[in-house]
């Protein structure tokens, strides 16, 4: 289990390096997908399987849209991947930074294995599911605000990208 978790965390940091090294948007979006999937895996191993499922479905749904948009807006004839010279050096530098930081920070017992439920399989109420119940009962007003924010974001995106010839991101 500890090996599995360490592998997931390494993949998480690796995915972030893949995004931060600034390749073409196609590949950066792929790095985001890796980060999202691996993050959900980490959530599962901490005992939040329902939360993880929800995150995976919704986040990857959003990711698909982001991928479509970035692919449509930044249609490059020669996209840079991680093997290309500039991006490769960034990957190397970020990787070095991560290794050095890990050498300083990961000392002693890191306490990797902690479940959110105190009694693991014997818990009567699962923490993530009861959190969802809380969100619908006492957090109802927050939920309304969140729904409003999503609606607002929809209008913002439509307003910013509307028009064929003067689409905002293409104007730069």
């Amino acid at each position, binding site marked *: 289990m500890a090996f599995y978790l360490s592998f997931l965390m390494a993949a998480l940091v690796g995915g972030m390096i893949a995004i931060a090294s600034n390749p073409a948007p196609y590949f950066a979006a792929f790095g985001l997908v890796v980060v999202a999937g691996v993050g959900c895996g980490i959530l599962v191993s901490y005992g939040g399987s329902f939360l993880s499922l929800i995150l995976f479905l919704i986040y990857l749904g959003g990711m698909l849209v982001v991928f479509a948009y970035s692919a449509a807006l930044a249609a490059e004839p020669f996209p840079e991947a991680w093997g290309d010279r500039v991006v490769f050096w960034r990957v190397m530098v970020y990787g070095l930074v991560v290794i050095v930081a890990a050498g300083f920070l990961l000392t002693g017992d890191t306490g990797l294995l902690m479940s959110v439920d105190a009694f693991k399989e014997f818990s009567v109420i699962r923490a993530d599911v009861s959190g969802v119940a809380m969100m619908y009962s006492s957090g109802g007003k*927050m939920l309304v*605000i*969140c729904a*409003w*924010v999503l*609606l*607002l*974001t929809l*209008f*913002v995106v439509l*307003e*910013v990208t509307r*028009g064929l010839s*003067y689409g*905002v*991101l293409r*104007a*730069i």
Partner: protein
Amino acid sequence: MNPYVLMILMSSLGLGTTLTFSSSHWILAWMGLEINTLAIVPLMAQQHHPRAVEATTKYFLIQAAAAAMILFTSTTNAWISGQWDVTGMPGPATSTAMMFALALKIGLAPMHFWLPEVLQGLDLLTGLILSTWQKLAPMALIIQTTQTTDPLILTSLGIASSLIGGWSGLNQTQLRKILAYSSIAHMGWMIIVIQYAPQLTLIALGTYIFMTSAAFLTLKVLSATKINTLTTTWPKSPILAAIATLVMLSLGGLPPLTGFMPKWLILQELTKQDLPATATIMALTALLSLFFYLRLCHAMTLTTSPNTINSAPHWRVQTTQNSLPLTISVTVTMGLLPLTPAILMLTT
């Protein structure tokens, strides 16, 4: 823009600030800031020309970075201390990071570089919203969190903002950039006194909002974005040109006008706290700002600029713009100094 969409955006601007004002929980405060940022983005980009889009993109990136930093810091704070209260930030690491995130949000030096660039790309009314309404929510959080921040950081931020705001404005000929640097300098005055007397920060913010509204609305009526344009305003609308001079001097902080009040009270408070060096430096940096305000005044009223028309009076028609906000803000900008005791009472 469709009026319904405009209504949604405007009401969300109000909602964001209200949420941040009324929340004692970091998540809700962060949500309010994010709503504010999201709602202003289409307003900034509504002209759809490349300069406005560039400004919008810069603004969005900076605000998103600052909001992410706020979210990370408050999560770390909850992890360390087990509570999400806005007011309690134990430990220097979280309170310092939070202060810098909020400073990035309102554009305090040395995190100020985005502000002039963004403001220069917007039209004057959006710039007005950006430099007044958008400062309210982060300032509310700053006032609540800074009681545990290291005083050295606050003093450094305050002096740096006031100094850089005055210094960088000296070289500018574009009015929106000058107003941006004036905003940075005023924010410095607000931050320098926040730990000694937060109510003076409120007074400084309130008077700054009225003064900068008066400046932006004056420029809107004159449709001036450069000093060049300002030099030809006196034959076109002489009364407004004369009043605009007083507005600029009020922003600079000269005595019979409103702008003197916050500077006076803040200097008095700093002196009472036995900080004569800080008070002197702040007073001297105000002179730097005063220089570019004076240059605007000089261009507006004391020069006869070379122009294609050499007769002084122009044919004047009544303006179709709504002049009530301009009237109110100009009146407040020029005449509040005698009411200083009453305004002090308002905030205590």
